[in-house]
């Protein structure tokens, strides 16, 4: 009962927030003169000035903002998100094409970031002021201070430029032909998994190989925050009375760390991990741009530069939705691992 009420309220709130998001993005669009906004409808046609004016008139780009907004919402409810200039395709098709590339990187780097952060953070706390603690703290403060783009460029410079190992992109040329050949079926759009399902392990290995550098980039940059939080949370947890009690009754140190200290220390980390997964998107924009991976992040970078509003609108809505949902899931997990917290 309590949970149901809570869920309904949160979902309603989500609708309110997404409505606000559309207003914000729409306002950004309305800052532009109609002549620039008409580009959305031009696609590739060449028009003269007269036709240009006619188009502005036809699509009502001189109408008051609320009228235009209502028109836009109507078309969204019909499932029409418009045409993306940067994707050269309707927005929904563009999304279907780019999303798996991003998802693949998120699925690989997300869990790694959390795992590295938690393990390094708790190891640092258990061995406070020992070499591993110093290493972890330096790793974290440096990782926190490096510009995403710089680390990516340096990794490329060394591993691609000098050693010629990891090239940017998502597949090598020879495997790209395989991927687009007729015999190769696309099940998920995730290259590694599709490769395995098609029994082409060489394709899967090649796709995985291309994921290595971007993943390293994201792990170094993003696990720093989780590591810091885990360390301080674990230190606090190790100082509690119940740890001393467990020690006194003779439990082994290993059991105490794993069962008592770490589990309690994880609670704040869960919240941050959820938010970090949503925040990974900012890292994605830069990482995908640098490593030439045609995913949502790079698409967004291009769309913003060209003010491809339909694409921006759709993806901002999508990402905000993901953020709100992740937050909701985190709150429920939170209540589950810490019975003191009640959903109210």
């Amino acid at each position, binding site marked *: 009962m309590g949970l149901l009420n809570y869920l309904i309220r949160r979902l309603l*709130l989500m609708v*309110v*927030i*997404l409505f*606000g*998001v559309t207003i*914000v*993005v729409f306002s*950004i*669009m309305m*800052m*532009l003169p109609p002549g620039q906004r008409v580009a959305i409808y031009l696609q590739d046609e060449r028009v003269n000035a007269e036709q240009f004016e006619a188009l502005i008139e036809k699509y009502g780009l001189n109408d008051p903002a609320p009228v235009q907004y209502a028109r836009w919402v109507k078309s969204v409810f019909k499932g029409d998100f418009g045409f993306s200039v940067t994707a050269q395709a309707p927005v929904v098709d563009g999304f279907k094409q780019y999303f798996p590339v991003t998802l693949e990187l998120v699925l690989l780097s997300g869990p790694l970031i959390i795992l590295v952060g938690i393990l390094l953070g708790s190891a640092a706390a258990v061995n406070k002021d020992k070499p591993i603690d110093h290493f972890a703290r330096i790793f974290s*403060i*440096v990782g*926190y*201070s*490096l*510009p*995403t*783009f*710089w680390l990516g*460029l*340096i990794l*490329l*410079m060394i591993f*691609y*430029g*000098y050693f*010629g190992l990891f090239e940017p992109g998502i597949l090598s040329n020879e495997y790209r032909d395989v991927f687009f050949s007729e015999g190769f079926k696309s099940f998920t759009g995730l290259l590694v998994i599709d490769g395995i399902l098609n029994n082409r392990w060489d394709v899967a290995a090649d796709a995985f190989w291309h994921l290595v550098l971007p993943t390293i980039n994201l792990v170094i940059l993003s696990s720093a925050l989780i590591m810091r939080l885990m360390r301080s949370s674990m230190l606090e947890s190790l100082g509690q009375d119940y740890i001393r009690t467990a020690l006194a009754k003779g439990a082994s140190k290993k059991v105490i760390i794993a069962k008592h200290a770490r589990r309690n220390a994880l609670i704040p980390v869960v919240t941050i991990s959820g938010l970090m997964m949503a925040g990974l*998107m*900012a890292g994605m*924009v*830069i990482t995908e*741009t*640098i490593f030439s991976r045609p995913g949502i992040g790079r698409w*967004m*970078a291009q*769309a*913003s*530069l060209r*003010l491809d*509003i339909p694409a*921006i609108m759709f*993806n*901002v809505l999508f*990402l*905000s939705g993901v*953020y*709100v949902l992740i937050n909701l899931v985190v709150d429920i997990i939170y209540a589950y691992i810490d019975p003191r917290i009640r959903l109210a």
Partner: protein
Amino acid sequence: MSNEQIDKAPEAIEMKSKQHPKLQEFLFSLKRFLKNPLSIIGLTIIISFALIAVFAPIIAPPYKTDNPYQIPHKGWAQEPQPPSVENPFGTMPEQYDIFYGMVWGTRNAFKIGFSIVFFNLIIGLALGTIAGYFGGIVDEIIMRIVDLFYALPFLVVAMALVVALGRGLQSIIIVMVVLGWRQYARIIRSEILVLRDKDYIQAARASGASHLRVIFSHILPNSIYSVLIVASMSVGTAILTAAALSFLGLGSGVGYADWGQIVSTCRNYIVGPPGNRLAYWFLVFIPGFVISLFVLGWNLLGDAVRDVFDPKMRRK
């Protein structure tokens, strides 16, 4: 105070009472701050950069005095030149001097960091205080707006907004001010919620103090510290995000002394010609290293400020 102390010479008593508790507290904090090697490193880094910013006209005399942020360049040759006596950090494509750009870029870096954090702080404090103090429907509306700003994918919306406003460092700063105040509003609101029902606040209200007076002389002085701690830790992040936006091609044009812009100009020269793959190492490495060092300095300083002033951390 014990009898022993009272018996001492009058001067001693005066000395003791001159040490206001707030001053004592401050000296204690300062001592802790100076004991921590990391905070000393951070402070040294930031002071060095501040000196570079102040003495920029001496370190790298401008070619055009009316627009010193325009990096001088000799010719239009694309081939970047490695570090030399004349160009200590080498040159970018079109022979822009990287050293000059980094020196004058320091001024811009301070400007970016301070102005973004300062205005974020002002907006966040104002909205968070109103929400927390007045509560009710006002609180509900403001906090839902804060939720909305949290839900927006920051970098994507920031990019679109910068393009709509017109590219340039100015737009980047404005956009980051508009989008970045959310965390301060949340923190100050939760602080104020705790304070609002305290007896001394009620007493101040009952004795006829106006809302403004209560807020400025009773509420803010007691709640502002946690916000200031977060602010000190945010300068580095603000500079990183602004640099990322510049890097993506949203900054002022080529040749403007902005660190992110310099890396952006150089990003196509990662791999050198065959036989000497690392020929252009200085192009990306030096500007990026300077940005990292600057941000590291701020982060170390921010950490130290938190460790020293945060009552939850300090006496551990």
